[in-house]
């Protein structure tokens, strides 16, 4: 091969590499898409330059709280507890399982234990973890830790949370080993992922929006991380903000569309309904929060000050409509008699009349409390039946202001087949379209939500 020929090959190779790089970068930029608050379209300003009330930190009514209490409020707003605690375990000691198609990730101990927790973390170490997803030992965290959301948190707020965590009793609880398969067990790859998907920048208010909206944006994006479950993910497993709040999933449950879409989202809800749902876990005629959302209400949202709840409502309601394939029309109450309405599926009916009817009634409108009313809830108006099956398996605890109501967990008493059939019956009788879950589907749902 002559010099000129070799040079030509090299040139072609270089061009191919350059084209691939440009195409790859363009694709990465496309995939990354808009940021979480970009839909608002206004001008973003640095926090220091924002003229109105500071949207970060704790609410004005809590300003007199001591530093640890401030950190507690923020830690609750960020809902650290639920993912860093197992159902029977000690608070913040980790071990909560995230079951993914390619293995299981376990959360870690964030009590101040020096050996197994974060007791040796400096302020800089803590900020690197929260903002960039990097551990003290330099390893990357999996984005089950929502650092692409927490990255918007101010240093001051993140360190207030650290102060609160460091005020807790240290618990000795070594991390459980993840069971991810190749290539997902290659932590270094998360570095590449983060380069594309973690903006690694702090919250910037939108100067065209009200102080309340900006407070809601900070609470929803930097702390409560609503989008981590309610926004669908792209092929890179990152949030696709082109369909912001259009519906996603969480631990084997569906996190429904909370965009302004009138049919499949919450566009037809009143502000009070949204506030009641996130603040108390229930809005009349819209059902009750269960599963991961029930936990988010009980451990996080219900603990926020009323003005913060209102700010979240103002912000969430401003997110533009994204339609999803859920039925736009919700079914009215079923007939009062078991003879009328949906009557097929003898097996599902048998389970329902023995275990469910005494609270939910044949019409789906509960006498004991609106919290137990099925009519109008998204779960029964979802033809997948997934959340109905999960509620049957795990039960549902409600956080009513005037009394708690609990639906027992039926996962141990009914077989997968029975749970599939009762979910199919319930969605057919009380919803727009019946589901067609099978025994195998329910087995899979159990695995996904298991701890």
């Amino acid at each position, binding site marked *: 091969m002559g010099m000129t020929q070799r040079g030509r090959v090299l040139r072609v190779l270089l061009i191919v590499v350059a084209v691939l790089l440009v195409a790859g970068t363009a694709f990465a930029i496309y995939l990354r898409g808009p940021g979480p608050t970009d839909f608002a379209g206004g001008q973003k300003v640095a926090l220091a330059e924002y003229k109105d009330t500071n949207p970060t930190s704790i609410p004005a009514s809590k300003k007199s709280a001591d530093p640890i209490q401030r950190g507690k409020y923020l830690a609750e707003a960020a809902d650290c507890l639920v993912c860093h605690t197992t159902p029977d375990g000690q608070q913040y000691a980790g071990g909560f399982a995230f079951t993914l198609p390619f293995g299981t990730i376990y959360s870690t101990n964030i009590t101040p234990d020096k050996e197994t927790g974060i007791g040796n973390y400096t302020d800089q170490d803590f900020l690197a973890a929260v903002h960039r997803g990097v551990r003290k030992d330099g390893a990357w965290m999996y984005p089950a830790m929502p650092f692409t959301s927490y990255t918007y948190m101010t240093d001051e707020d993140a360190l207030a949370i650290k102060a609160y965590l460091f005020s807790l009793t240290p618990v000795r609880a070594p991390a459980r080993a993840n069971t991810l398969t190749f290539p997902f067990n290659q932590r270094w790859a998360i570095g590449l992922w983060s380069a594309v998907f973690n903006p690694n920048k702090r919250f910037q208010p939108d100067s065209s929006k009200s102080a309340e909206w900006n407070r809601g944006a900070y609470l929803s994006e930097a702390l409560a991380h609503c989008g981590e479950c309610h926004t669908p993910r792209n092929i890179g497993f990152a949030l696709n903000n082109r369909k912001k709040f259009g519906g996603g999933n969480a631990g084997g449950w569906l996190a429904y569309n909370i965009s302004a879409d009138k049919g499949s989202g919450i566009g037809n809800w009143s502000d009070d309904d949204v506030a009641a749902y996130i603040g108390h876990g229930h809005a009349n005629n819209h059902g009750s929060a269960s599963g991961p959302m029930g936990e988010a209400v009980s451990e996080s949202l219900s603990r926020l000050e009323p003005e913060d709840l209102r700010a979240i409502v103002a912000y969430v309601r401003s997110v533009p409509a994204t339609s999803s394939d859920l039925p736009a029309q919700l079914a009215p109450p079923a007939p009062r008699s078991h003879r009328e309405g949906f009557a097929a599926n003898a097996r599902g009916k048998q389970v329902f009349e023995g275990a469910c009817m*005494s609270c939910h009634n044949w019409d789906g409108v509960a*006498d004991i*409390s609106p919290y137990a009313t099925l009519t109008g809830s998204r779960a029964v108006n979802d033809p997948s039946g997934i959340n109905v099956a999960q509620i049957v398996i795990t039960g549902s605890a409600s956080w009513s202001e005037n009394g708690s109501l609990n639906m027992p967990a039926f996962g141990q008493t009914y077989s997968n087949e029975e749970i599939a059939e009762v979910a199919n019956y319930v969605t057919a009788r009380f919803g727009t379209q019946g589901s067609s879950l099978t025994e195998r589907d329910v087995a899979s749902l159990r695995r996904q939500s298991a701890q």
Partner: protein
Amino acid sequence: MSQRQLKINGEDKTVDVPDNMPLLWVLRDVLGMTGTKYGCGIAQCGACTVHLDGRAIRSCQMPVSAVGSRAITTIEGIGKTPTGARIQKAWLDEEVVQCGYCQSGQIMSASALLATTPKPDDADINAAMAGNICRCGTYVRIRAAIKRAAEGEQPT
């Protein structure tokens, strides 16, 4: 804690209890009306069944604050309703009861059924009674008694 008025078996009662106290506790522990039984506490056995405006509900799962102005009927008062009286007579005629623990709830569910469905068939009885559990297994006699009450003459 808050004071609230409850209408029970036609009488007005005032109770001072926490809002989230189950109606069953109010009936048994506060008002001493122990005819209504505590079974499972999770609305899975039916022993605590009472009526709210004539509909059968599980009082163990009902926060007292959710009752509102609705009229409560318990086993102590069901005999004063026409269907309740017929059901109780049929229960005696068929000698339904064995240990009796679940029977207040059975009678309450059966009389609510008969009030809306005067001539229930087996499917109607299943639909109304499947959530009322009887450990003695008196189900066959319960079914017979409901049918006897449905066919029987109105007591005078």
